[in-house]
Protein backbone atom coordinates (compact mmCIF):
# COMPACT_ATOMS: atom_id res chain seq x y z
CA UNK A 1 0.00 0.00 0.00
CA UNK A 2 3.02 2.22 0.15
CA UNK A 3 3.55 2.11 -3.59
CA UNK A 4 2.41 5.46 -4.81
CA UNK A 5 2.09 4.17 -8.39
CA UNK A 6 -0.56 1.58 -7.55
CA UNK A 7 -4.06 2.90 -8.11
CA UNK A 8 -6.41 2.76 -5.17
CA UNK A 9 -8.64 0.05 -6.66
CA UNK A 10 -5.87 -2.51 -7.02
CA UNK A 11 -5.04 -2.12 -3.37
CA UNK A 12 -6.26 -5.63 -2.62
CA UNK A 13 -3.99 -7.21 -5.23
CA UNK A 14 -0.69 -5.51 -4.57
CA UNK A 15 -1.45 -4.94 -0.97
CA UNK A 16 -0.11 -5.83 2.39
CA UNK A 17 1.00 -9.38 3.00
CA UNK A 18 -1.49 -11.36 5.03
CA UNK A 19 1.19 -11.62 7.64
CA UNK A 20 0.80 -7.96 8.54
CA UNK A 21 -2.95 -8.30 8.85
CA UNK A 22 -2.64 -11.40 10.99
CA UNK A 23 -0.04 -9.75 13.15
CA UNK A 24 -2.06 -6.62 13.75
CA UNK A 25 -5.35 -8.38 14.36
CA UNK A 26 -3.87 -10.90 16.78
CA UNK A 27 -1.99 -8.18 18.57
CA UNK A 28 -5.15 -6.11 18.97
CA UNK A 29 -7.25 -9.12 19.93
CA UNK A 30 -4.71 -10.21 22.53
CA UNK A 31 -4.49 -6.75 24.00
CA UNK A 32 -8.25 -6.48 24.02
CA UNK A 33 -8.66 -9.80 25.80
CA UNK A 34 -6.12 -8.81 28.40
CA UNK A 35 -7.79 -5.46 29.11
CA UNK A 36 -11.29 -6.92 29.29
CA UNK A 37 -10.27 -9.68 31.69
CA UNK A 38 -8.38 -7.18 33.81
CA UNK A 39 -11.38 -4.86 34.00
CA UNK A 40 -13.66 -7.79 34.81
CA UNK A 41 -11.41 -9.01 37.62
CA UNK A 42 -11.07 -5.57 39.16
CA UNK A 43 -14.75 -4.64 39.04
CA UNK A 44 -16.27 -8.02 39.92
CA UNK A 45 -16.17 -7.66 43.73
CA UNK A 46 -17.51 -4.11 43.48
CA UNK A 47 -20.38 -5.17 41.23
CA UNK A 48 -21.27 -8.09 43.51
CA UNK A 49 -21.25 -5.74 46.48
CA UNK A 50 -23.49 -3.26 44.63
CA UNK A 51 -25.95 -6.01 43.77
CA UNK A 52 -26.04 -7.19 47.36
CA UNK A 53 -26.64 -3.65 48.63
CA UNK A 54 -29.40 -3.14 46.06
CA UNK A 55 -31.16 -6.36 47.14
CA UNK A 56 -30.78 -5.53 50.80
CA UNK A 57 -32.09 -1.99 50.37
CA UNK A 58 -35.09 -3.26 48.43
CA UNK A 59 -35.62 -6.00 51.00
CA UNK A 60 -35.82 -3.76 54.04
CA UNK A 61 -38.08 -1.46 52.05
CA UNK A 62 -40.66 -4.13 51.18
CA UNK A 63 -40.59 -5.63 54.68
CA UNK A 64 -40.98 -2.58 56.92
CA UNK A 65 -39.59 -3.12 60.38
CA UNK A 66 -37.26 -5.94 59.42
CA UNK A 67 -33.84 -5.73 61.04
CA UNK A 68 -32.26 -8.99 59.95
CA UNK A 69 -32.65 -11.41 57.13
CA UNK A 70 -31.91 -15.01 56.23
CA UNK A 71 -31.81 -16.51 52.76
CA UNK A 72 -33.57 -19.71 51.82
CA UNK A 73 -33.82 -21.72 48.65
CA UNK A 74 -36.99 -23.53 47.78
CA UNK A 75 -36.67 -26.80 45.95
CA UNK A 76 -39.37 -29.17 44.68
CA UNK A 77 -40.62 -30.14 48.12
CA UNK A 78 -38.50 -28.32 50.63
CA UNK A 79 -37.19 -25.00 51.91
CA UNK A 80 -33.55 -24.97 52.97
CA UNK A 81 -31.55 -22.20 54.64
CA UNK A 82 -28.58 -21.08 52.64
CA UNK A 83 -25.66 -19.07 53.88
CA UNK A 84 -24.39 -17.23 50.83
CA UNK A 85 -27.42 -17.15 48.57
CA UNK A 86 -26.29 -20.07 46.43
CA UNK A 87 -28.01 -23.34 45.76
CA UNK A 88 -30.50 -24.89 43.37
CA UNK A 89 -34.01 -23.51 43.32
CA UNK A 90 -35.72 -20.18 43.87
CA UNK A 91 -34.14 -17.84 46.35
CA UNK A 92 -36.39 -16.28 48.99
CA UNK A 93 -35.49 -13.91 51.80
CA UNK A 94 -37.07 -14.05 55.23
CA UNK A 95 -37.12 -10.84 57.26
CA UNK A 96 -37.21 -10.78 61.07
CA UNK A 97 -37.84 -8.06 63.62
CA UNK A 98 -35.78 -7.34 66.76
CA UNK A 99 -37.25 -10.24 68.69
CA UNK A 100 -36.40 -12.63 65.87
CA UNK A 101 -40.01 -13.05 64.82
CA UNK A 102 -40.75 -13.66 61.16
CA UNK A 103 -42.55 -10.60 59.83
CA UNK A 104 -42.35 -11.13 56.10
CA UNK A 105 -40.90 -13.11 53.24
CA UNK A 106 -39.50 -11.32 50.22
CA UNK A 107 -39.52 -12.97 46.82
CA UNK A 108 -38.44 -12.04 43.35
CA UNK A 109 -40.86 -12.05 40.45
CA UNK A 110 -40.46 -11.18 36.79
CA UNK A 111 -42.58 -10.82 33.67
CA UNK A 112 -42.37 -9.26 30.25
CA UNK A 113 -43.25 -5.57 30.38
CA UNK A 114 -43.70 -3.08 27.57
CA UNK A 115 -40.04 -2.87 26.58
CA UNK A 116 -38.19 -5.54 28.46
CA UNK A 117 -38.55 -7.93 31.37
CA UNK A 118 -39.58 -6.20 34.60
CA UNK A 119 -38.07 -7.68 37.77
CA UNK A 120 -39.51 -6.84 41.15
CA UNK A 121 -39.08 -7.84 44.76
CA UNK A 122 -42.29 -8.22 46.76
CA UNK A 123 -43.00 -9.20 50.30
CA UNK A 124 -45.52 -11.71 51.57
CA UNK A 125 -46.79 -11.38 55.10
CA UNK A 126 -47.81 -14.81 56.46
CA UNK A 127 -49.78 -13.25 59.34
CA UNK A 128 -52.39 -11.66 57.08
CA UNK A 129 -51.64 -13.82 54.04
CA UNK A 130 -51.23 -10.75 51.96
CA UNK A 131 -48.68 -8.96 49.82
CA UNK A 132 -47.28 -5.99 51.68
CA UNK A 133 -45.12 -4.09 49.23
CA UNK A 134 -43.28 -4.21 45.93
CA UNK A 135 -40.02 -2.69 44.80
CA UNK A 136 -38.93 -2.62 41.16
CA UNK A 137 -35.42 -4.02 40.77
CA UNK A 138 -34.99 -3.68 37.03
CA UNK A 139 -37.10 -2.34 34.22
CA UNK A 140 -36.87 -0.52 30.93
CA UNK A 141 -40.38 0.93 30.82
CA UNK A 142 -41.10 4.23 29.09
CA UNK A 143 -40.00 7.13 31.29
CA UNK A 144 -42.99 9.15 32.42
CA UNK A 145 -45.53 6.41 31.58
CA UNK A 146 -44.67 2.78 32.35
CA UNK A 147 -42.01 3.62 34.91
CA UNK A 148 -44.75 4.96 37.19
CA UNK A 149 -45.12 1.40 38.49
CA UNK A 150 -42.04 2.10 40.60
CA UNK A 151 -43.01 5.47 42.06
CA UNK A 152 -46.70 6.31 41.64
CA UNK A 153 -48.08 6.49 45.20
CA UNK A 154 -51.60 5.53 44.13
CA UNK A 155 -50.33 2.42 42.37
CA UNK A 156 -48.23 1.54 45.40
CA UNK A 157 -51.35 1.71 47.55
CA UNK A 158 -52.49 -1.50 45.83
CA UNK A 159 -49.79 -3.34 47.68
CA UNK A 160 -50.41 -2.11 51.19
CA UNK A 161 -52.53 -5.17 51.79
CA UNK A 162 -53.05 -7.16 48.60
CA UNK A 163 -55.01 -10.31 49.39
CA UNK A 164 -53.15 -13.57 48.70
CA UNK A 165 -55.09 -16.07 50.83
CA UNK A 166 -54.78 -19.76 50.11
CA UNK A 167 -57.74 -21.83 48.99
CA UNK A 168 -59.30 -24.59 51.10
CA UNK A 169 -56.78 -27.34 50.34
CA UNK A 170 -53.81 -24.90 50.47
CA UNK A 171 -52.60 -25.75 46.99
CA UNK A 172 -53.04 -22.36 45.33
CA UNK A 173 -54.39 -18.87 45.95
CA UNK A 174 -58.08 -18.59 46.74
CA UNK A 175 -58.38 -15.72 44.25
CA UNK A 176 -56.17 -14.93 41.27
CA UNK A 177 -54.38 -11.62 41.56
CA UNK A 178 -55.83 -9.60 38.71
CA UNK A 179 -55.38 -6.20 37.16
CA UNK A 180 -58.51 -4.11 36.71
CA UNK A 181 -59.00 -0.85 34.84
CA UNK A 182 -58.07 2.33 36.66
CA UNK A 183 -60.63 3.23 39.30
CA UNK A 184 -62.62 -0.02 39.20
CA UNK A 185 -60.97 -1.90 42.05
CA UNK A 186 -63.58 -3.61 44.22
CA UNK A 187 -61.89 -6.68 45.72
CA UNK A 188 -58.75 -6.82 47.88
CA UNK A 189 -57.01 -9.15 45.40
CA UNK A 190 -57.37 -6.75 42.49
CA UNK A 191 -54.74 -4.30 41.30
CA UNK A 192 -55.90 -0.89 40.16
CA UNK A 193 -54.01 -0.13 36.92
CA UNK A 194 -52.25 3.14 36.21
CA UNK A 195 -54.22 4.86 33.48
CA UNK A 196 -52.04 5.03 30.36
CA UNK A 197 -49.72 2.30 31.60
CA UNK A 198 -51.97 -0.73 31.34
CA UNK A 199 -49.32 -3.04 29.89
CA UNK A 200 -46.82 -2.33 32.65
CA UNK A 201 -49.53 -2.62 35.32
CA UNK A 202 -50.75 -5.90 33.89
CA UNK A 203 -47.17 -7.22 33.86
CA UNK A 204 -46.91 -6.51 37.58
CA UNK A 205 -50.21 -8.28 38.27
CA UNK A 206 -49.21 -11.26 36.15
CA UNK A 207 -45.81 -11.72 37.75
CA UNK A 208 -47.29 -11.41 41.24
CA UNK A 209 -49.97 -13.96 40.43
CA UNK A 210 -47.53 -16.43 38.82
CA UNK A 211 -45.07 -16.17 41.65
CA UNK A 212 -47.60 -16.18 44.49
CA UNK A 213 -49.54 -19.14 43.07
CA UNK A 214 -46.34 -21.13 43.09
CA UNK A 215 -44.59 -19.88 46.21
CA UNK A 216 -47.23 -18.98 48.78
CA UNK A 217 -48.42 -22.60 49.30
CA UNK A 218 -44.80 -23.60 49.89
CA UNK A 219 -44.12 -20.77 52.29
CA UNK A 220 -47.25 -21.55 54.30
CA UNK A 221 -46.38 -25.26 54.40
CA UNK A 222 -42.87 -24.63 55.70
CA UNK A 223 -43.70 -21.60 57.83
CA UNK A 224 -42.34 -23.26 61.00
CA UNK A 225 -38.94 -23.69 59.47
CA UNK A 226 -38.80 -20.05 58.40
CA UNK A 227 -39.96 -18.94 61.86
CA UNK A 228 -37.47 -21.13 63.72
CA UNK A 229 -34.58 -19.78 61.72
CA UNK A 230 -35.27 -16.36 63.20
CA UNK A 231 -34.47 -17.69 66.69
CA UNK A 232 -31.12 -18.99 65.49
CA UNK A 233 -29.97 -15.56 64.49
CA UNK A 234 -30.37 -14.20 67.98
Amino acid at each position, binding site marked *: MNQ*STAPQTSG*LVTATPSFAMLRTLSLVAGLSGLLVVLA*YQITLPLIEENKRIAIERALFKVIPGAVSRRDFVTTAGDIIATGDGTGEGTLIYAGYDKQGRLIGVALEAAAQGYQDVIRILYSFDPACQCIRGIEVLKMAETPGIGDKIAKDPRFQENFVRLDARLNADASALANDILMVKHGTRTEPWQIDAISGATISSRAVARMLNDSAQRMVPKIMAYLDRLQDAGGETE
Partner: protein
Amino acid sequence: MNLPNQEEKVTADTFLRGLWEENPVFVMLLGMCPVLAVTNSAINALAMGLATTFVLLCSSILVSLMRKLIPKQVRIATYIVIIATFVTIVDYSIQAISLDLYNALGAFIQLIVVNCIILGRAEAYASKQRLGATVVNGLGMGVGFTIALLCLGGVREILGAGSLFGFPLFGENFQPWVVMILPPGGFFVLGGWLLLFNWYRQHRERKLMEQQGATASGS
Protein backbone atom coordinates in the same frame (compact mmCIF):
# COMPACT_ATOMS: atom_id res chain seq x y z
CA MET B 1 1.83 7.02 2.21
CA ASN B 2 1.34 8.85 -1.03
CA LEU B 3 -0.83 11.36 0.74
CA PRO B 4 0.70 14.68 1.64
CA ASN B 5 1.67 14.96 5.26
CA GLN B 6 -1.53 15.82 7.08
CA GLU B 7 -0.20 15.89 10.58
CA GLU B 8 -1.23 19.08 12.24
CA LYS B 9 0.27 21.11 15.03
CA VAL B 10 -1.55 21.15 18.34
CA THR B 11 -3.21 24.52 18.83
CA ALA B 12 -6.11 25.78 20.88
CA ASP B 13 -8.21 25.21 17.79
CA THR B 14 -7.51 21.47 17.88
CA PHE B 15 -9.41 21.36 21.15
CA LEU B 16 -12.01 24.04 20.54
CA ARG B 17 -13.09 22.64 17.19
CA GLY B 18 -14.95 19.84 18.94
CA LEU B 19 -16.78 22.29 21.18
CA TRP B 20 -18.02 24.68 18.55
CA GLU B 21 -17.02 24.52 14.88
CA GLU B 22 -17.31 20.75 14.52
CA ASN B 23 -19.50 19.99 17.51
CA PRO B 24 -20.45 16.33 17.03
CA VAL B 25 -24.11 16.84 17.93
CA PHE B 26 -25.08 20.37 16.96
CA VAL B 27 -22.99 20.67 13.80
CA MET B 28 -22.14 17.19 12.53
CA LEU B 29 -25.36 15.55 13.81
CA LEU B 30 -23.50 12.36 14.70
CA GLY B 31 -24.41 9.82 17.35
CA MET B 32 -28.08 10.75 17.31
CA CYS B 33 -29.15 7.44 18.83
CA PRO B 34 -27.74 8.01 22.33
CA VAL B 35 -28.32 11.76 22.01
CA LEU B 36 -32.05 11.29 21.73
CA ALA B 37 -32.44 8.17 23.82
CA VAL B 38 -30.60 8.77 27.08
CA THR B 39 -31.01 12.51 27.55
CA ASN B 40 -34.25 12.24 29.54
CA SER B 41 -32.40 13.46 32.62
CA ALA B 42 -29.31 15.53 33.21
CA ILE B 43 -27.50 12.85 35.19
CA ASN B 44 -28.01 10.24 32.46
CA ALA B 45 -26.79 12.72 29.88
CA LEU B 46 -23.69 13.50 31.91
CA ALA B 47 -22.87 9.82 32.50
CA MET B 48 -23.36 8.98 28.85
CA GLY B 49 -21.21 11.93 27.80
CA LEU B 50 -18.39 10.96 30.15
CA ALA B 51 -18.55 7.29 29.13
CA THR B 52 -18.38 8.23 25.47
CA THR B 53 -15.52 10.64 26.12
CA PHE B 54 -13.55 7.94 27.88
CA VAL B 55 -14.03 5.46 25.05
CA LEU B 56 -13.27 8.11 22.45
CA LEU B 57 -10.09 9.17 24.16
CA CYS B 58 -8.75 5.68 24.89
CA SER B 59 -9.53 4.25 21.47
CA SER B 60 -8.08 7.30 19.75
CA ILE B 61 -4.86 6.96 21.73
CA LEU B 62 -4.50 3.30 20.81
CA VAL B 63 -5.37 3.85 17.16
CA SER B 64 -2.94 6.73 16.95
CA LEU B 65 -0.14 4.70 18.55
CA MET B 66 -0.77 1.77 16.22
CA ARG B 67 -1.47 3.82 13.10
CA LYS B 68 1.67 2.64 11.30
CA LEU B 69 0.94 -0.99 12.19
CA ILE B 70 -2.64 -1.23 10.98
CA PRO B 71 -2.99 -2.38 7.36
CA LYS B 72 -5.65 -0.54 5.41
CA GLN B 73 -7.69 -3.66 4.64
CA VAL B 74 -8.36 -4.58 8.25
CA ARG B 75 -8.49 -1.10 9.74
CA ILE B 76 -12.25 -1.05 10.42
CA ALA B 77 -12.11 -4.46 12.10
CA THR B 78 -9.19 -3.31 14.20
CA TYR B 79 -10.92 -0.08 15.22
CA ILE B 80 -14.08 -1.92 16.19
CA VAL B 81 -12.17 -4.40 18.36
CA ILE B 82 -10.31 -1.57 20.06
CA ILE B 83 -13.50 0.43 20.63
CA ALA B 84 -15.42 -2.63 21.85
CA THR B 85 -12.68 -3.32 24.40
CA PHE B 86 -12.98 0.09 25.98
CA VAL B 87 -16.77 -0.02 25.86
CA THR B 88 -16.68 -3.28 27.81
CA ILE B 89 -14.39 -1.69 30.37
CA VAL B 90 -16.78 1.28 30.72
CA ASP B 91 -19.69 -1.13 31.01
CA TYR B 92 -18.10 -2.92 33.97
CA SER B 93 -16.98 0.34 35.55
CA ILE B 94 -20.46 1.86 35.49
CA GLN B 95 -21.87 -1.31 37.05
CA ALA B 96 -19.25 -0.99 39.76
CA ILE B 97 -20.03 2.69 40.34
CA SER B 98 -23.82 2.60 40.40
CA LEU B 99 -26.33 -0.05 39.41
CA ASP B 100 -29.13 2.54 39.23
CA LEU B 101 -27.21 4.49 36.65
CA TYR B 102 -26.42 1.31 34.76
CA ASN B 103 -30.09 0.38 34.64
CA ALA B 104 -31.05 3.89 33.53
CA LEU B 105 -28.61 3.88 30.63
CA GLY B 106 -29.61 0.37 29.61
CA ALA B 107 -28.35 -0.92 26.30
CA PHE B 108 -26.94 2.44 25.26
CA ILE B 109 -23.66 1.77 27.03
CA GLN B 110 -22.98 -1.24 24.84
CA LEU B 111 -24.17 0.75 21.85
CA ILE B 112 -21.28 3.19 22.26
CA VAL B 113 -19.44 0.61 20.12
CA VAL B 114 -21.34 1.74 17.06
CA ASN B 115 -21.33 5.43 17.92
CA CYS B 116 -20.15 7.02 14.69
CA ILE B 117 -18.38 9.84 16.50
CA ILE B 118 -15.81 7.40 17.83
CA LEU B 119 -15.34 5.42 14.64
CA GLY B 120 -15.30 8.68 12.71
CA ARG B 121 -12.57 10.12 14.91
CA ALA B 122 -10.51 6.93 14.60
CA GLU B 123 -10.82 6.87 10.82
CA ALA B 124 -10.60 10.57 10.06
CA TYR B 125 -8.23 11.82 12.71
CA ALA B 126 -6.47 9.37 15.01
CA SER B 127 -5.25 7.13 12.18
CA LYS B 128 -3.41 10.07 10.59
CA GLN B 129 -2.24 12.20 13.50
CA ARG B 130 0.37 12.09 16.18
CA LEU B 131 -0.54 11.13 19.73
CA GLY B 132 -0.58 14.66 21.16
CA ALA B 133 -2.94 16.09 18.58
CA THR B 134 -5.18 13.04 18.86
CA VAL B 135 -5.54 13.34 22.61
CA VAL B 136 -6.34 17.04 22.46
CA ASN B 137 -8.78 16.65 19.59
CA GLY B 138 -10.47 13.60 21.11
CA LEU B 139 -10.86 15.39 24.42
CA GLY B 140 -12.39 18.37 22.66
CA MET B 141 -14.85 16.20 20.79
CA GLY B 142 -15.75 14.33 23.97
CA VAL B 143 -16.31 17.51 25.94
CA GLY B 144 -18.33 18.93 23.06
CA PHE B 145 -20.48 15.81 22.99
CA THR B 146 -20.96 15.87 26.77
CA ILE B 147 -21.96 19.54 26.75
CA ALA B 148 -24.43 18.91 23.94
CA LEU B 149 -25.97 15.99 25.84
CA LEU B 150 -26.17 18.10 28.98
CA CYS B 151 -27.92 20.88 27.03
CA LEU B 152 -30.56 18.41 25.91
CA GLY B 153 -30.81 16.48 29.16
CA GLY B 154 -31.01 19.62 31.29
CA VAL B 155 -33.81 21.20 29.28
CA ARG B 156 -35.75 17.95 29.04
CA GLU B 157 -35.50 17.22 32.75
CA ILE B 158 -36.49 20.75 33.75
CA LEU B 159 -39.55 20.77 31.48
CA GLY B 160 -40.50 17.12 31.72
CA ALA B 161 -39.90 16.38 35.39
CA GLY B 162 -39.50 19.81 36.99
CA SER B 163 -36.07 19.01 38.39
CA LEU B 164 -32.39 19.24 37.54
CA PHE B 165 -29.93 16.50 38.53
CA GLY B 166 -32.79 15.08 40.60
CA PHE B 167 -33.35 18.23 42.66
CA PRO B 168 -36.92 19.53 42.33
CA LEU B 169 -37.04 23.11 41.09
CA PHE B 170 -40.63 24.26 41.09
CA GLY B 171 -42.37 22.86 44.16
CA GLU B 172 -45.45 20.71 44.51
CA ASN B 173 -47.85 22.37 42.10
CA PHE B 174 -45.67 21.98 39.02
CA GLN B 175 -47.43 19.91 36.37
CA PRO B 176 -44.65 18.14 34.44
CA TRP B 177 -44.69 18.37 30.69
CA VAL B 178 -44.30 14.61 30.34
CA VAL B 179 -43.85 14.54 26.58
CA MET B 180 -40.48 16.21 27.06
CA ILE B 181 -38.94 13.14 28.69
CA LEU B 182 -40.57 10.85 26.15
CA PRO B 183 -38.89 10.23 22.78
CA PRO B 184 -40.76 13.02 20.93
CA GLY B 185 -39.45 15.52 23.48
CA GLY B 186 -35.92 14.59 22.45
CA PHE B 187 -36.66 15.68 18.90
CA PHE B 188 -38.36 18.89 20.03
CA VAL B 189 -35.47 19.94 22.24
CA LEU B 190 -32.83 18.92 19.69
CA GLY B 191 -34.71 20.94 17.06
CA GLY B 192 -34.81 23.92 19.39
CA TRP B 193 -31.07 23.78 20.08
CA LEU B 194 -30.23 23.35 16.38
CA LEU B 195 -32.37 26.37 15.59
CA LEU B 196 -30.55 28.40 18.22
CA PHE B 197 -27.12 27.25 17.07
CA ASN B 198 -27.75 27.91 13.40
CA TRP B 199 -29.40 31.23 14.06
CA TYR B 200 -26.40 32.37 16.10
CA ARG B 201 -23.94 31.08 13.51
CA GLN B 202 -25.69 32.91 10.66
CA HIS B 203 -26.00 36.02 12.76
CA ARG B 204 -22.26 35.96 13.38
CA GLU B 205 -21.40 35.34 9.75
CA ARG B 206 -23.61 38.21 8.65
CA LYS B 207 -21.91 40.50 11.16
CA LEU B 208 -18.55 39.43 9.81
CA MET B 209 -19.62 40.05 6.21
CA GLU B 210 -20.97 43.47 7.09
CA GLN B 211 -17.74 44.40 8.80
CA GLN B 212 -15.70 43.29 5.83
CA GLY B 213 -18.04 45.16 3.52
CA ALA B 214 -17.65 48.28 5.62
CA THR B 215 -13.86 48.13 5.58
CA ALA B 216 -13.83 47.39 1.85
CA SER B 217 -16.00 50.39 0.97
CA GLY B 218 -14.14 52.53 3.46
CA SER B 219 -10.73 51.95 1.90
